[in-house]
Structures are given as C-alpha cells and as structure tokens.
C-alpha cells in the first residue's frame, strides 16, 4: 500500500505519462465512478461496465439503489486513449489508459467536468446483482479526517500566476489516499504543492467492501489585490 502510494505520488509529481513508465490498464470490467461538473457542486455516482466486445453500460443511481445496466454506447481504445459517449445526454468521455485508475474528462456542448473510478467486483456485471446492491456498499461516503491546504507557491505569487488543479485518487478503506493523478493542471508551478496537500490529507475509513473508492479534489489558486 505504501509502495503504491509512493509510486503514484512520484508519477504525479513528475508528470510521468509515457507508456514506458506508467502502467497501461485495461478498462474492461466493472467500475464504480464519480462524476463532477465544472461550476457545479453536485457530483454523480454511476457504475460503468466495459465489455470485451466493445460495449459500454451504465447503472445509474435511483435513491440509494442502482437501476439495472443500460447500454450507453460502444467504447474504443486507441493509442492508450479510451473514449465513449453517454448517448442519453450526449456526454463524451475520454480517459488516458496509462493512468493508475480509470478516469479523465467529459464534456457536452454546454458543460464539462471530470470522472474517476475504482475497479469493482466483476460479479456486479450481472444485472440482478447490481440491482440488489446499496449505493453505500460500493460508494461509501467520504468524510474528511485530515484536510491539508496547499500553500501558494511564492514563485507563482511573484509571477502573478493564478490557476487551478484537480487531482483524483483512490481512498482505501483505511482512509488513506493513494494513486493520485492530475486530471487538470493549469500550470506546472502548482503541481508539487497540490500533490503534497492531497497526500497529507485523509478520510475516515470504513469496514468491509469496497477496498477503495474514487475521489477528487479541486484547488483554485487566486490572487486578490491588497488594499
């Protein structure tokens, strides 16, 4: 666990993104995913299933329970980039398969955001199983235990640089944050301080399954005139 965290942090810190240094993963299987939207505070939970034959299915939440699997589109993976569309609302998803977990950005004609997933038990690929599962069993609520705020890099202040960063990660059942990945980073100057803050944070753990769930954190670096 510690090794995974260190490796993930090292990759995130130095922006390792080439196929020689990062693991290329297969998207096939069942994933518990959270979706966030820019300029919106609400997040969305959905189960995603990528079948070997190239089809994508979503199981959406209804109250505390998931509805059965519904097809959304085919998926394609070219040059380590996964893409598919939620045909119901025209949301186009893309993911860099070299990242430590599945996720990336999404967009429609009028909005955009990001998504991040944790792999779930393939037994959930069965519709009957997914309909009987409670949302909290696959996506337990994340309650902050220790939250660290990044310091504003002095170099950025001196260069009058504002910016933002979004890091997504997995939270293990112990509450420890592992495998951080930058989904958005406006300037490299904010990379290290953001990553340090995320890795210095933790959540309350939970008992039982799942072994990990996804989470993301967005940082906006602002400069206000004094006086």
């Amino acid at each position, binding site marked *: 666990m510690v090794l995974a965290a260190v490796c993930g942090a090292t990759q995130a810190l130095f922006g390792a993104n080439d196929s020689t240094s990062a693991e290329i993963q297969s998207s096939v299987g069942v994933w518990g995913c959270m979706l966030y939207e820019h300029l919106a505070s609400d997040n969305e939970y959905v189960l995603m299933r990528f079948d070997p034959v190239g089809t994508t299915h979503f199981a959406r939440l209804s109250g505390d329970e998931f509805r059965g699997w519904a097809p959304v589109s085919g998926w394609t993976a070219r040059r380590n980039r996964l893409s598919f569309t939620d045909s119901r609302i025209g949301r186009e998803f893309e993911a860099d398969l070299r990242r430590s977990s599945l996720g990336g950005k999404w967009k429609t004609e009028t909005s955009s955001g990001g998504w991040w997933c944790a792999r779930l038990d393939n037994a959930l690929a069965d519709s009957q199983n997914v309909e009987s599962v409670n949302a909290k069993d696959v996506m337990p609520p994340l309650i902050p235990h220790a939250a660290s705020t990044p310091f504003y890099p*002095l170099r950025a202040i001196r260069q009058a640089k504002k910016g933002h960063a979004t890091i997504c990660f997995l939270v293990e059942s112990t509450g420890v944050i592992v495998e951080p990945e930058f989904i958005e980073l406006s300037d490299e100057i904010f990379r290290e301080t953001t990553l340090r803050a995320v890795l210095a944070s933790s959540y309350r753990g939970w008992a039982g399954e799942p072994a990990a769930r996804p989470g993301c954190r967005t940082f*906006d670096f602002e*400069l206000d005139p004094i*006086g």
Partner: protein
Amino acid sequence: MSLIDDSVYCCLDAIIINMGNVLVSSLCMCLVTSVGWAQDEAAVDKFRTPGRIVLESGNQLLSAGSQALRAGAYDEGIRLTHLGLEQSGISAYQRTAALSNLCGAYAAKKAPDAAIEYCSQSLEIDNNNWRAFSNRAYAHWLKGMHTEAASDLEAAAAINPSAGEIEQIRGLINQSTLQPRVNVEDRQ
C-alpha cells in the same frame, strides 16, 4: 566605438520569507547598476603614446567606486563615486551612470530616500536609462510605494524588456500587493 563594461556589480540580498510553516529562500535580488564606460576611438587615441596604450581612459575614481560597489563595499564605493563626480571633464553618460550607481548603492543599503534622489538626478540627465528606472523602482518598493515602483518598472521594461532584474523587482511588487488564496473543493 567600443564599450568596456568594466563595472557591473551585483548586490545580493537574500530574503527569507516565512510562508505558512515553510521557509522559502526565495530571492537573490540582483540590483544591478552597470556602468559601461563608453570609449570611442577618438577618446582612446588621446591616451595613446608610441609603444603604449592606456587602457583606463575613464574617470579612475568612478571606476574604483564601481568596483568597490560590485565587491559589496558600499560605503567605500559611495565615497569614491562622490569623489569621482567632483572631477572635471565627466561626460553626461558617465554622470548618469555614476548617479545610477549611487542610487543602487543606497538602495542596497536600504536607504531608499537617498536612492530615489540619485536615481531621479540620473534620469534628469538621461531618461532612457533603464537601470536608473529599475533601481528607483526597487527603492520605491522599499518604501512601500508600490504604485510608483510599478510605474518606474514599466518605464524600465519599455526600454529593456528582457532585463532579468525587472522581473525580479516585479516579483517583489507582486508579492507585496497580491494576497494569495486557495479554495479547496472536495469532489466525492
């Protein structure tokens, strides 16, 4: 025409800034006031005698003053520069450079009022001297006069946009006039 850049000096001013609990050694403030003692061929010829070329054709006191300043001996550099300025036959170029040097020296000594006075005198002679503008910007910053500092810095940048010192002083001004804020939003 040749330019001998014999007296570029740099005062190092390390500022340790405590931001949060992290000590950031941030700044090597290089307040450069260089004096390129101009020597045109005619001027050099005056010092040529058969079998001998006198390389030092400028005001020796000003040269010694600038060297002392470059070495960080500000009081001695200021004394020599003042003496040099009292010599006869100083060109307008030498005078403006020497005044700018005095400005830089007083700024390095954290005496911004004197620095501003000498920079202003230098700029009265030649208002195209970016170092005088940049030194005065630094002196204004020392006094907390950020608007004036920014104005001088813009003037310096308009003359020499690629000067690194200008970016350093702009950084100081930004640091004094901008309040950082980080908003964190959990997405879960």
